[in-house]
C-alpha cells in the first residue's frame, strides 16, 4: 500500500487492531477487532467513533462566497443561517451529481466537507470561483455517532448537548478549537468533529476511554448509511444520476427552483428544474429482498414480465434489519412502495419488494 496516503490517526488504528484497506487513495480501517456486524450494532446501541479524516475539508471566504457557491450547487447557501449546516451536491451540465457535500455557515466563512475520492476535483471546481479557497490539511475529522454520542461528547464539552440536528458550534476539546456539527452519515444522532491534527489522538483516546464508545470501521459505516437510506457517492449517485432521480429533491430548496428569485443558476439547471416539475424517468428506491440472499451492487432488477428494468446500486446485509437490504434505480412507474420485482443473483431471479427508506428510523435530534 505504498502509494496510499495515511490519516493522522493511522498508528492508533493499527494499534487498535484495524484491518487497513485502500479506500479513495488512503489506507483506511475497514474494521477493528469487533468485526463489521458488532461494530454496526454497537453504533446503533451506544456510540461509535469513526475516523473520516480522508474526507476533504475546505473553507471559502469572501463577501459573496455564498452567492458564488450557489453557482455550483442547487442549494440555498445564501439563506443558510450562521451556525447551521446543510446537505448539498455539486451538479454538472447534464444535471448529474459530481459529488455530495455538507456546507456550514461559520459566520465569516463557509466550511465544506466533501468526499475523499472527489476532493481534488471539488477543490479545482471551487478554485474557479471568485472567492478565497483554503484547503484544510492540518485537521482531522472524527464522527461520533449513536444514541450515546451526546452523553460521551458532553462529558468533554457540556454545551454540545444543547445543539440540534445540523447545528454547528465552535467548542474547546482537549484544549484545542474544534468545529462540531450535530450530524453524520449513519442515520443516528451524533456529531462530526474537525480538530487540529495535533490533538486528534488525544481526543480519540479520551473518547475511547468512555466505555460506551468503540472505534468503528468503514465496513460498518457502509451498512449503517445503507440502512439509513443515505446515498454513497460513486454508487447510489454519480455524474449520470440527477438529484430528482436520486430522490434528493428535498435538498433543493424552493428559492433555487423555477419562479424564485435565485431559481436556477447552477450547472444542469435546465435538466434539474424540468425534472422537478415533470418527474424523472428513473427513481432511487429502497429494495428489500424477500429471501436471505444479499443483493449487492450491480444486481439487475427485473419486472414481473421478466424484463430488465433497473439495477441495485448498494446492497448487503443490514445488521439492525436482520436481513438483506438494498437501494437501486427502477423506472418511476415501478417505484411505489410494495411493488414486487426480482433481482438476479447467481442466475436465479429472486423476489424483492420496493420498500420505504430509511430501513431503520433516523435517530436525529431535531
Amino acid at each position, binding site marked *: 500500500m505504498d502509494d496510499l496516503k495515511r490519516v493522522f490517526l493511522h498508528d492508533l488504528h493499527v494499534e487498535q487492531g484495524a484491518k487497513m484497506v485502500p479506500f479513495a487513495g488512503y489506507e483506511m480501517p475497514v*474494521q477493528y477487532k469487533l*468485526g463489521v456486524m458488532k461494530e454496526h450494532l454497537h453504533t446503533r446501541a451506544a456510540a461509535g467513533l469513526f475516523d473520516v479524516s480522508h474526507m476533504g475539508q475546505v473553507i471559502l471566504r469572501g463577501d459573496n462566497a455564498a452567492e458564488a457557491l450557489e453557482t455550483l450547487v442547487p442549494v440555498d447557501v445564501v439563506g443558510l443561517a450562521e451556525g447551521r449546516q446543510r446537505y448539498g451536491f455539486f451538479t454538472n451540465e447534464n444535471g448529474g451529481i459530481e459529488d455530495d457535500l455538507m456546507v456550514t455557515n461559520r459566520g465569516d466563512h463557509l466550511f465544506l466537507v466533501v468526499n475523499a475520492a472527489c476532493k481534488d476535483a471539488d477543490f479545482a471546481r471551487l478554485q474557479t470561483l471568485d472567492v478565497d479557497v483554503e484547503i484544510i490539511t492540518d485537521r482531522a475529522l472524527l464522527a461520533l455517532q449513536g444514541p450515546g454520542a451526546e452523553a460521551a461528547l458532553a462529558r468533554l464539552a457540556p454545551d454540545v448537548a444543547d445543539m440540534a440536528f445540523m447545528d454547528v458550534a465552535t467548542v474547546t476539546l482537549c484544549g484545542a478549537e474544534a468545529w462540531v456539527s450535530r450530524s453524520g452519515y449513519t442515520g443516528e444522532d451524533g456529531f462530526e468533529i474537525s480538530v487540529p491534527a495535533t490533538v486528534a489522538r488525544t481526543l480519540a483516546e479520551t473518547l475511547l476511554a468512555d466505555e460506551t464508545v468503540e472505534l468503528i470501521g468503514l*465496513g460498518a459505516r457502509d*451498512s449503517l448509511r445503507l440502512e439509513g437510506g443515505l446515498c454513497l457517492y460513486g454508487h447510489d449517485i454519480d455524474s449520470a444520476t440527477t438529484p430528482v432521480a436520486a430522490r434528493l429533491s428535498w435538498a433543493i430548496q424552493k428559492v433555487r427552483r423555477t419562479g424564485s428569485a435565485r431559481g436556477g443558476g447552477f450547472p444542469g439547471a435546465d435538466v434539474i428544474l424540468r425534472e422537478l416539475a415533470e418527474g424523472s424517468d428513473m427513481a432511487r428506491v429502497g429494495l428489500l429482498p424477500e429471501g436471505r*440472499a*444479499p443483493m449487492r451492487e450491480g444486481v439487475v432488477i427485473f419486472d414481473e414480465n421478466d424484463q430488465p428494468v433497473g439495477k441495485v446500486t448498494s446492497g*448487503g446485509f443490514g445488521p439492525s434489519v436482520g436481513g438483506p437490504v438494498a437501494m437501486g434505480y427502477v423506472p418511476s412507474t415501478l417505484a411505489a412502495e410494495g411493488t414486487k420485482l426480482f433481482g438476479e443473483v447467481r442466475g436465479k431471479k429472486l423476489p424483492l419488494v420496493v420498500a420505504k427508506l430509511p430501513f431503520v428510523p433516523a435517530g436525529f435530534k431535531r
Partner: protein
Amino acid sequence: MKFTEEHEWLLVEGDVVVVGITAHAAEQLGDVVFVELPEEGTEVSKDDEVVVIESVKAASDILAPLDGEIVEVNTAIVDDPGKVNEDPEGDAWFFKMKVEDMAEMDDLMDEAAYKKFIS
C-alpha cells in the same frame, strides 16, 4: 483432520467425509450472513461450486474438495449463518459426502502443513 488450499477441512466419519471451512477462512470472511447448501444426493466433481457463502463483505464459493456425492447438509447454518463464525471447525460443518476415492484424502494437507500454508 485434513485441509485443502481452499481452506476447507475434511474429517472422516465412518464411510463419509464431513466438510467445513477452517477457522482461518471464517475469520477472513468476516461475519457470515447467508449460506446456500447443495441438495442431498447431488453428485459432485472436485472443484465444483457446491456452496455459496456470503459475509457482510462479499460472496464466495465453497468448492467440492473431491469427487463424490453429497449425502447430508447442515441446515442449521442456513437458519443461523452466524454459527459459521462461532464454531467453524465443529458444529458449523457444511456437508457430508461419500468420496469416490478415499485414497485422494492422502494428497491433502495435514494440520501442520495447513498451518504452514496460512502462515
